[in-house]
Every structure is written in structure tokens, then in C-alpha cells.
């Protein structure tokens, strides 16, 4: 299990050769994005991107004891996601697009009516209001044995390019550009619902008045935070915008789902072999010790926005698809991991084998992180020089993780939930291109040579490696080689220096170095 430069070059080149001509046009009429978009058929879509998260689920999936309590967490998560998906996508409710759930975090898009800024912005904000009401007033009372869940949200509006990964049977919508990125970035870990200045400005006055301006110090930007909205006023607002969310119907669907999926039918188990994610569902979940890896193309949002501005979106998308597919190949083929999801320009991966062996799981996850950086720095940048400004930022963490496939029939999302998943995502989000950030637990499981390549960051309380590629790791492991006889083999391909003899290699104890 390892990454190889030549294999990587061949894979990326083959993908580029077979990619076909990329087409990017402005979306000017309504369309089913799932059918329209593909790797090469891309659209510049004006819309509001909404992220809504229930942070409690990650804690519950990590700390809840085995048995019925844990089944209840799974049931709650499944039912929450099913109903939220119905609210978002119901033509008679919000008529939005559920891009996917990232664990318990929803990413939704509103683009109808086409280019109608104020209606699109209003729908995005009203969805957040409705979901907050749903969680507090419908979901929480229906699940009294779960702690009270809270909801955080973020939204932004503008143009983002929609595309899709090209894997048969495993296709996901991908959105690239500032609104898809900032909507997620302004999310907080608490129960705040925030929107960017752009979406606030686009809102009608009747909705703007519910927001208060606040400074987001992390992003160094002004955002707007939603205050309380009385139930009667929410109903009036929904009426005004022709949205027909019926809280009684929502509660009934929740009750029906609860009857359909009772606790005694919900199963979960550990995994001895690589999890087949397609076999997962509400009655078949996995609870495993796993390492989560998030690899993000740092600087890609700015790059794609700049490229679109200069009419150069096609080469930028070519870069994205080359990187994206290679990231997936590294996870799946080179390190036998699970490629959980693409989230725009980011890949989420999970490593849970060998079962319960945290040392090997951690090593495999870090080897993958190094391979992701190697592929970017040594392969993609060589084949696509336009990617020279980009870099991969990686976060790695380990812990108990709930793995499942949730949602409504036909639109189920692969999900991994747990504190370690959240932590890995946070580590990655705080890292620059070329950085690999790992928790101290992961670091403690690495061999001595590899440990030395990471530096403790006392501010972030993480170990960070910068510009670490596979060849450098190999060389770091050679540090003690030169005290004994080395074996040198040379020829057309170059020279290799190793600790073991190969055919035609020459052996000698290297000279003791000196400098005047």
C-alpha cells in the first residue's frame, strides 16, 4: 500500500486525455441540476448557498454509550435528515436543491426563480428560520431522550460553477466559487444563524430587520446574525413568499418515519473488512475506530473566481477534475480507504482498517495525506502548470465514527459523524496549502522518523508538516543509512542509494564528510 509517482502521472494523464471538452455556460433557465451537470457540462449558477448544521450529532455519535441510546442517536439523525431533505426539496415547500449532507451538515442551493436575487435570498433565509423552528419545536419534543439539539446556519449568494464528479453510480454535485465557500465558512459551532453582507443586502426589508450586524473575527468580515422570529411572524413571512411549510405535516412525517424505522430495527456494528458504503442504511450502520482525512485544494476558490473573471474557467475546471480524481484514486486504490465525499474542491476520506488497530490506521491516514500532497506538488503541477499557485491542505484525526448512508430513497448521502471527523475538517480548514495538520494522538502513533517531520504548533495545539512529499519521507527514513555500507545502482533511469543490494549495485561505506 503506497503511492507511486509513475502510477500517479499515468492516472492523471489518462484522465486528462479522456476528459473531453469542458463547457461552461451561464444557467439561464430552470433545469434539474442532477441531470444537467456533468464533469464536462458545467454551469455558472447564480444562487444562494445555505449550510445548516446540528453540531450536537457529532458529539452524540462519539460519546453515546452502546445499545439503545446509540440506536436512538442513529434514528434521530436519519429522521432529521429525511425530513430536512423533504423540506428543502419539496416543490410545494422550498423548491431548493439538496446538494448533500456532510455528516449532519446540510448544503442546499436556491437558484429559482432564475437570477431573481431577492426571492432567492429570501428563500435561503426562510429555510434557515424554518429549520431552526423545526429542530426546536418539532424535532426536540419528538425525541425527548436525546439532548436538545441546536442548529447553526450560514448563507451567501452569488455566482458559483456547478459541476459533477464523473464516477458512475457515485456522482455528486460540486459547486465552486465564493458563495459555496463562504456560506460554510461563516458557520459557527454554536446555535447562530449567519448570512453574508451580500445576501443581507439582497433581502427585502421585511426580512433584513431580523438580523443584527456582527464582526466575524475569524474571517475579518461583517456578517449578519439572525435574531428570534416569533411563530406567527414566520407563518406570515412564509405566506408572503408563497411557501407552504405545514408544521403539522412535518410532525406527522416524523412520527410516520419513527414508526417505519423503530429502534429495534436499527442495527450497528464494527467492521472487519472495508465498509461497503452502498450496503449501509438506517438498518445497517457501522460504528468504527477510524481516521478521518480531509484534503482541500487551498486557494482554489480564489483561483476559480479569478479564472471565471478572465474567461478562463475551463482550464481551472480541468485542474479541479484532475486533482479531484487523483485524490479519490489515492484514497481508494493506493491506500484502501473509503472516499466518503467530495465537498466542492475537498475530499473526505476514512480509514478504519485493520479493525481497532489505531497505530496502523493512523499511519495509513498520514501516508495518504502525504500522497495527496505529493500528487499535487509533483504530478498535477508538472502536468498542469496553471495549477502552480495551488496547494493541498490536509487535516487528520482519529476517533469513534458513525458511518452510514442516510436520507430519502434515491438521494442518500454517505455520512461519517464523530468528533474526530469534525476535528479533521477543522484542522484542514486552518491549514495553508502544503500543510498536513494532525492531532497529537495521530502523531503519537507514527514511527520516529515520520514524527520528526512534524512540528508542534503551540497555538493550534497540533502537529504540522509543511511541503512533505513521499520522496522526502523516504529520505528522512534514510538518515541513519550512511553509517554503514550503502548500495548504489546507476543507469539510464538515474541513481538509487539504498541499504540493500540490488542487481548490479555497488557497495561501500561512504566517506565521512568534512568541510574546510
Amino acid at each position, binding site marked *: 500500500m*503506497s*503511492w*507511486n*509517482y*509513475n*502510477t500517479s502521472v499515468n492516472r492523471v494523464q489518462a484522465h486528462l486525455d479522456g476528459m473531453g471538452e469542458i463547457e461552461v455556460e451561464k444557467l439561464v433557465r430552470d433545469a434539474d441540476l442532477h441531470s444537467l451537470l456533468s464533469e464536462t457540462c458545467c454551469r455558472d449558477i447564480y444562487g444562494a448557498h445555505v449550510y445548516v448544521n446540528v453540531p450536537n450529532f457529532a458529539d452524540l455519535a462519539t460519546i453515546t454509550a452502546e445499545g439503545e441510546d446509540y440506536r436512538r442517536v442513529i434514528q434521530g439523525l436519519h429522521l432529521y435528515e429525511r425530513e430536512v431533505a423533504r423540506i428543502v426539496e419539496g416543490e410545494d415547500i422550498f423548491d431548493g436543491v439538496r446538494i448533500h449532507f456532510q455528516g449532519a451538515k446540510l448544503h442546499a442551493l436556491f437558484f429559482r426563480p432564475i437570477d431573481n436575487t431577492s426571492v432567492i435570498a429570501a428563500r435561503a433565509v426562510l429555510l434557515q428560520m424554518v429549520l431552526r423552528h423545526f429542530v426546536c419545536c418539532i424535532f426536540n419534543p419528538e425525541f425527548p431522550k436525546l439532548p436538545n439539539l441546536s442548529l447553526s446556519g450560514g448563507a451567501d449568494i452569488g455566482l458559483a460553477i456547478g459541476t459533477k464528479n464523473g464516477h458512475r453510480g457515485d456522482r455528486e454535485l460540486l459547486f465552486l466559487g465564493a458563495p459555496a465557500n463562504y456560506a460554510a465558512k461563516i458557520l459557527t459551532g454554536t446555535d447562530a444563524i449567519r448570512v453574508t453582507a451580500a445576501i443581507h443586502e439582497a433581502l427585502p426589508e421585511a426580512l433584513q430587520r431580523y438580523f443584527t450586524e456582527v464582526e466575524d473575527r475569524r474571517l475579518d468580515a461583517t456578517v449578519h446574525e439572525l435574531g428570534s422570529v416569533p411563530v406567527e411572524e414566520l407563518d406570515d413571512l412564509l405566506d408572503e413568499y408563497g411557501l407552504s411549510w405545514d408544521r403539522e405535516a412535518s410532525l406527522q412525517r416524523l412520527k410516520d418515519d419513527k414508526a417505519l424505522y423503530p429502534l429495534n430495527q436499527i442495527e450497528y456494528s464494527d467492521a472487519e473488512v472495508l465498509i461497503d458504503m452502498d450496503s449501509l442504511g438506517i438498518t445497517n450502520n457501522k460504528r468504527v475506530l477510524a481516521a478521518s482525512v480531509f484534503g482541500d485544494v487551498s486557494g482554489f476558490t480564489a483561483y476559480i473566481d479569478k479564472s471565471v473573471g478572465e474567461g478562463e474557467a475551463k482550464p481551472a475546471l480541468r485542474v479541479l477534475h484532475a486533482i479531484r480524481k487523483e485524490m479519490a484514486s489515492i484514497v481508494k486504490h493506493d491506500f484502501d480507504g473509503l472516499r466518503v465525499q467530495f465537498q466542492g474542491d475537498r475530499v473526505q476520506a476514512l480509514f478504519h482498517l485493520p479493525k481497532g488497530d489505531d497505530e496502523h490506521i493512523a499511519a495509513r491516514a498520514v501516508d495518504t495525506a502525504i500522497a495527496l500532497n*505529493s500528487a499535487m506538488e*509533483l504530478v498535477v503541477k508538472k502536468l498542469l502548470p496553471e495549477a502552480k499557485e495551488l496547494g493541498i491542505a490536509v487535516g487528520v484525526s482519529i476517533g469513534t465514527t458513525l458511518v452510514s448512508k442516510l436520507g430519502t430513497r434515491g438521494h442518500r448521502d454517505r455520512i461519517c459523524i464523530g468528533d474526530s471527523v469534525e476535528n479533521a475538517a477543522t484542522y484542514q480548514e486552518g491549514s495553508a496549502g502544503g500543510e498536513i495538520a494532525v492531532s497529537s494522538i495521530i502523531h503519537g502513533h507514527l514511527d520516529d522518523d515520520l514524527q*520528526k*517531520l512534524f512540528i508542534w504548533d503551540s497555538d493550534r495545539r497540533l502537529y504540522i508538516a509543511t511541503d512533505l*512529499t*513521499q*520522496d*522526502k*519521507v*523516504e*529520505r*528522512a527514513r*534514510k*538518515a*541513519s*543509512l*550512511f*553509517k554503514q555500507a*550503502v548500495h*548504489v545502482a*546507476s*543507469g*539510464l*533511469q*538515474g*541513481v*538509487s*542509494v*539504498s541499504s540493500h543490494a540490488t542487481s548490479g549495485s*555497488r557497495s*561501500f561505506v*561512504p*566517506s*565521512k*564528510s*568534512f*568541510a*574546510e
Partner: protein
Amino acid sequence: MYRRSHSRSKPKPWFEREGGEILRAEQGLVQAHYPSLTFRADTESGRMYLDGQITLQANCGVATSIAVRISFPPNYPETEPTAYDAGGRFPVSADRHIINEGQFCLWLPPCCPWDKDDPSRLLRFLDELAVFLERQLVYDATGRQEWPGPQYKHGTAGYEEFMLSKLANNEEDFRSLLPVILGQLRPGRNEPCPCGSKQKYKRCHASSVADIVSRIGRNTLDFLYKRPNLRNPAATMM
């Protein structure tokens, strides 16, 4: 009438001697093992160089190419060639054993493994160079904290380390014998050894001192100990 000329004709450069046979042999060796290096003669200076790249392969398939120049001395193969960082890939630094003009210090001169009579001498030199370059990459990969593998101390201290090793690492002996090594004290062979052992010098340290002097060379010893020690003038021996 035959008149003997007083003007001495310029000796042929080493690569033209023996009908160019020495050069052809070295070319064959380089072609077989380091094909990305090419011999190039500089007609103006009459020097021969070996230029090109040494490509170091990692097991994962990543190749790192380093531009090098190997300069041959006029008396080659009596003395070994010198290797340089032709592309300025590495900074000049004593800690990484690279000195002015990017010259690679592969070894302490008295420990040079060069054997002029070995037909594979140039191949061994290039292999040593390849290992030295690999060590440079290891040094970079490990954060430039510690030179990978054994090394002598820098400058005069490195030579003293060598001399000590030849005197069984006995510091007292070294202090007593240094004036002898430097030629300041010339004990008779049958006189007591300056180390204080009460043995005759010839039966005690005479051969070790002779070996040290011949390996380091009188000129180098003079250079090392007669030049002013700018860091610590009081420590200057003479």
C-alpha cells in the same frame, strides 16, 4: 649539429596522454553508469570537465536531478577530481559540506579513498558523489538539523580529529606530539618519545607521526597552523 633545446615543451594534458586511452576508458565507464554526464574539454584552459546531471531516484518513483560539474586536475589520475554544484541547487554552507563556488567536500583530504591505480576509480568517485548528494536531500528532508551520517568537525578541528584517531584518540599524546607533527620539534629516532612513554621514539610514535604528516601533507599543515586564527588569535600556534 644537434642542439638540445632549452625550452621545455608543454606537457600533454592527461586526456591526450597514452593516445587518449585514459580518457576513453573513463568515458566508457561514465557512459555505462552515469550516462547523463558528458566529458567536455575547455580548449582555452586545457582542462577537462564532466558536466550533466545526477538523477537520484526515490523508491516511490520521484526523480530529483542535480546539475553537477566535475573538474579534472591536470595531473589526473594522480589526484582526484573535484565536484561542484553546477546549478546552485544547495546553499554554500559548512554544515552541509559545500564551500565556495559550490564545491562539494566529499571527505577529509587525508582520508580520500581515491586510488589512482584502480580502473574503477572514477566510478567510485561518482558513487561517492551520488551518496553525498543523497545526503544533501536527506539533510533537507529532515529539516537541516543534523548532517546524516558521520562527519568530521569543520576546518582545522577536523584535521585534529583525524590526527587524534591516528594516535588512538589519546589527547595527551596529541598535545605532546603536535610540535613534532608540525616540524617544530625533531626528536632523534633513538631519543625518548615526546609523548613521555620512556620508549624510544622510533619504537613509539615515529611511524604514526610520519603517517599523519604524509597523509595531511606538510603544505597543508603549514597552512592550517601558520595562518592567523582570526577567531582566537591567542590560539595561533606560530
